[in-house]
């Protein structure tokens, strides 16, 4: 009971800070801008496809499906990127940054305890980021449907994978904040995100070229950074049911060649999350403030 109350207190404090500092306002405004741009671009793309219908001599090609899946793949990528940016900024100062500014010490000396403090920050940041990526993702799904009539095969899988991926990023960002200063941590998380992205692209290139070495490198890297494997898994679920010549072209595209990571991905991600959490907790409990 005490734990729940402490979690509520610290989580509420973190959320109130995000609101009062206008972090959430900025995020909402910029997200609306992104979604408006996406709606406009999606509308234009589908109109163009309708106008040019039949111009390409490819029997069996479903141009709306190709356009819709590519747009939604792009939306999913942007959603994860924005979720990562949000995760980094809401956790940036959680430990080292706040300790350097003298904000953390008055809280840590209270009986609430460091582990609870860290868990509360994780839950608050995780909740904000998960809600955020869900809003952006489902908005993109609805906009794609509204502007072009395209509905992905398994939209729920995409949503779940994004939620899981951003949760991993929040955990990594919190681990980073126990070890690194704010700036170093922000840079580190963006670089890790970039590394995951590069690993995914290498895997897609490897699949297109049928290069086992590239695919293996990609596989190791994406499992080491499972947010990328989760993202790829979700992306794969969106387009897995597209068959025929459209399916082949989608698989060759930048958002279509994603790999199905298999049934072990989510258990692995959970273990990864727990290990990252334990490492962060250990580092925080041992830190001299």
């Amino acid at each position, binding site marked *: 009971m005490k734990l729940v109350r402490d979690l509520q207190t610290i989580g509420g404090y973190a959320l109130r800070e995000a609101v009062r500092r206008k972090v959430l306002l900025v995020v909402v405004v910029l997200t609306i801008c992104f979604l408006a741009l996406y709606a406009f671009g999606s509308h234009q793309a589908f109109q163009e496809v309708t106008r040019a219908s039949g111009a390409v001599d490819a029997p069996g090609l479903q141009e709306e499906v190709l356009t819709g899946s590519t747009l939604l793949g792009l939306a999913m990528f942007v959603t994860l990127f924005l979720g990562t940016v949000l995760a980094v900024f809401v956790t940036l100062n959680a430990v080292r940054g706040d300790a350097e500014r003298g904000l953390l010490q008055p809280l840590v000396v209270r009986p609430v305890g460091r582990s609870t403090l860290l868990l509360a920050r994780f839950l608050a940041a995780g909740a904000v980021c998960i809600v955020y990526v869900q809003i952006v993702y489902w908005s993109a799904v609805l906009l794609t449907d509204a502007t072009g009539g395209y509905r992905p095969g398994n939209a729920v899988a995409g949503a779940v994978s994004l939620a899981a991926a951003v949760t991993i990023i929040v955990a990594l960002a919190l681990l980073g904040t126990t070890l690194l200063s704010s700036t170093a941590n922000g840079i580190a998380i963006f670089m890790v995100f970039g590394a995951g992205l590069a690993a995914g692209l290498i895997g897609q290139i490897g699949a297109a070229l049928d290069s086992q070495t590239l695919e293996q490198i990609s596989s190791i890297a994406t499992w080491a950074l499972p947010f990328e494997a989760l993202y790829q898994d979700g992306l794969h679920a969106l387009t897995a049911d597209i068959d025929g010549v459209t399916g082949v072209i989608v698989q060759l595209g930048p958002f279509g060649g994603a790999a199905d990571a298999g049934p072990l991905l989510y258990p692995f991600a959970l273990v990864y999350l727990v290990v990252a959490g334990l490492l962060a907790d250990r580092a925080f409990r041992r830190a*001299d403030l």
Partner: protein
Amino acid sequence: MPDALLTVGLRKTYRAAVALDGVDLRVGAGELVGLLGPNGAGKSTLTKIACGLVRPTAGHVTVLGRPAGSTAARARTGYLAELFRFPGWATADEVLELHQRLARSGGGAPERRELLALVGLAEAAQRRVEAMSKGMAQRLGIAQALIGEPGLVLLDEPTSALDPAGRRTIRELLEGLRGRGVAVLLNSHLLSEVELVCDRVVIVDRGRTIAEGAPHELAAAGGVEVETVAGMRRFPDAGREEVPALVARLVSEGEEIYGVRVVTGTLEDAYLGLVGRDAR
């Protein structure tokens, strides 16, 4: 009743640097103890160990009979850090409310009102921290340290940002705490204030305790000054008890005496004599 704070052989090293080198310190229940020492002497490290912010390398520390840093010890400790900040977006009342929740204090709004009044911030309850002067924020910090009726209050330079009126307020507050049986460890460079309010003073230097005692015990006698026709004559080795004999001797030698003053040494004199005058 257990000591409010007890350290035995307390040692803390940061890689090769030794911050504390076997400090033994005792703050009795309801006692007001001043912790003095030059910059880098280890005062803040000792205070941080007592409230669980820093882990000791060796030694034994208890707060009200519980291991320092434990949940039970933290629940009975109030702490004001030397360098602290509260979130600028929060009001004074919100800061105290947050700390009440974290300290599991059931005092509610009456406790917040009382504490703000105690530090002279009764009118600033709804003022945001970012709109406060440094002195006001410091007062709020002191109010925060007193939440939940702690048995031990650790104050690290609590008056550094305060004007003379603010210092007097805090001095009166400290005396009030002593009256309520709350033990205080006051870490300060303001020797005159420590001398005024503390029951006992501990001086540390280079991580070791170099002197300990009541302020008047540490303050060395400064001799006797006698005003004569020829001017002020100083007898540095004389004490209060020797004044009658000294005056009688001078009169018998034909001196005309206009005034006699027993020179009392200050804590500052004693402190400087112990730690030296070199800036660090």
